[in-house]
């Protein structure tokens, strides 16, 4: 049962991810990206982590993609559909893709990092546990990330201000 659902979601996710890069119209790409995020959220649910799923939908689908759409709608779509973003055609894309896939596979197969981490924490997916883990075991990364985000935020504000002056 679960496997079937996983397969459905995974295939849909990959299909919509391909849609993101292959569709000509940026708005359509954005929609398929949204669909992709949704499938990933569904997979999170299958992994018994409804919190992550909700956050995924909340942040990516609800906020980030809306911003994307907001920007895309400001663009001149007709020009954007014509232009190609990578010069040199398919060849280089395929080369880069193969290299990337190889690297990812290599990392996953070589390292035991992933397996160990999951075993160490063993999340039940409840909100309380995620919170506890974040604030005990992963306190330092958590704080670092928040500082980075804060810096990015301030940077964005500063850059935005300059244009007005």
């Amino acid at each position, binding site marked *: *049962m*679960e496997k079937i659902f996983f397969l459905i979601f995974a295939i849909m996710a990959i299909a919509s991810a391909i849609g993101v890069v292959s569709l000509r*119209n940026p*708005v*359509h790409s954005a*929609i398929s990206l*949204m669909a992709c995020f949704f499938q990933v959220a569904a997979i999170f649910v299958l992994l018994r982590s*409804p*919190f992550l*799923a*909700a*956050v995924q*939908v*909340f942040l990516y*689908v*609800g*906020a980030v993609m*809306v*911003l994307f*759409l*907001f920007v895309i*709608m*400001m663009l001149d779509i007709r020009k954007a559909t014509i232009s190609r973003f990578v010069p040199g055609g398919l060849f280089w894309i395929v080369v880069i893709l193969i290299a990337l896939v190889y690297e990812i596979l290599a990392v996953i197969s070589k390292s035991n990092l992933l397996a160990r981490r999951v075993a160490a924490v063993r999340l039940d997916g*409840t*909100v309380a546990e995620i919170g506890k883990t974040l604030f005990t075991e992963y306190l330092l990364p958590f704080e670092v990330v928040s500082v980075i985000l804060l810096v990015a935020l301030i940077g964005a504000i500063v850059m935005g201000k300059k244009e007005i002056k």
Partner: protein
Amino acid sequence: MSHELITMDINTLIEVALIIVKVIFVSLTLFALPIPLTWMERKVAGHIQLRLGPFRVGPHGILQPVADMIKLMFKEDIVPDKADRRLFWLAPLLAMVPAFAVYAAIPFGDTVKIPFVDKEITLYISDMNVGILYILAISGMSVYGLILGGWASNSKYAAMGGIRSSAQMISYEIALSFACVAVVMIANSLSLLDIVNAQKELHWNIIYQPLGFIIFLIAALAEINRIPFDLPEDEGTLAAGYHVEYSAMKFSFFMLAEYVAMVTVSVLAVILFFGGWNAPLFLPEIPIFWFVAKVAFFIYFFMWIRFTLPRYRYDQLMTIGWKILLPLSLLNILVTGLFLL
């Protein structure tokens, strides 16, 4: 898992059947709700403006929504030239589905015992432990209908409405979630059931969270695009905003989504701040009744506001969202945290 399916006994079957019945019941109710609500809204509008409102179809115009429904069904379904047809079709659905999906996590009451059968049923479809997060996430989705509908129409007014709604959504979603966070901090749970149960015996959150409630209310008004924040469909400047090119059933889908969203927000306000189905002031507990009564009050309140306030300007909207509500909601969380410590 498959052998479990086979060994499923009669009790599980009953449970499954119950859930299906509940889903059907809730969605049918939601589908039917706009019928009395449109009538009520027009009556409220009429009487506030010293008019009578609809009066000709049926006694006191009570059949007016039915007449409107028939009209909407038989109207010509126009798709503008050069519109993005697929998205134009998709947008009303995208607006409607999340509005309904939200109700999977909303509790209408605790449990009731059915007489004769002697079986307890729960008055909610599911009690998610991430309930409120789910609701915020899903209800935030319905903005896609507005954005895409506006964009796909290939019309300047509609596109402006779409852009406005996306910007408005982003600005107010934050304040809305932060207002909810303070409630979650008090209840110590994300589940709506726990949040209501934490408000037993008049420990309603409105007493502890007056500021949070005000922030929630304002942000929610903006989220559901009602006056004074209905800029995406601002008649004065945008004709009808994002749904200017829509007609017939597709238009009615947007309307449906809007009304359901209004109900959702009322329900949320009741659950988060007004003690859910707990009876006010030591009055007797009647299952569901108090809940419906409170929700009805909020629905009326939203209509009341609509015919009291003028519409804000777009820059005012942004100022309120980012410069007032956001800092206030952060302050609210901070103060709540201090008290809880």
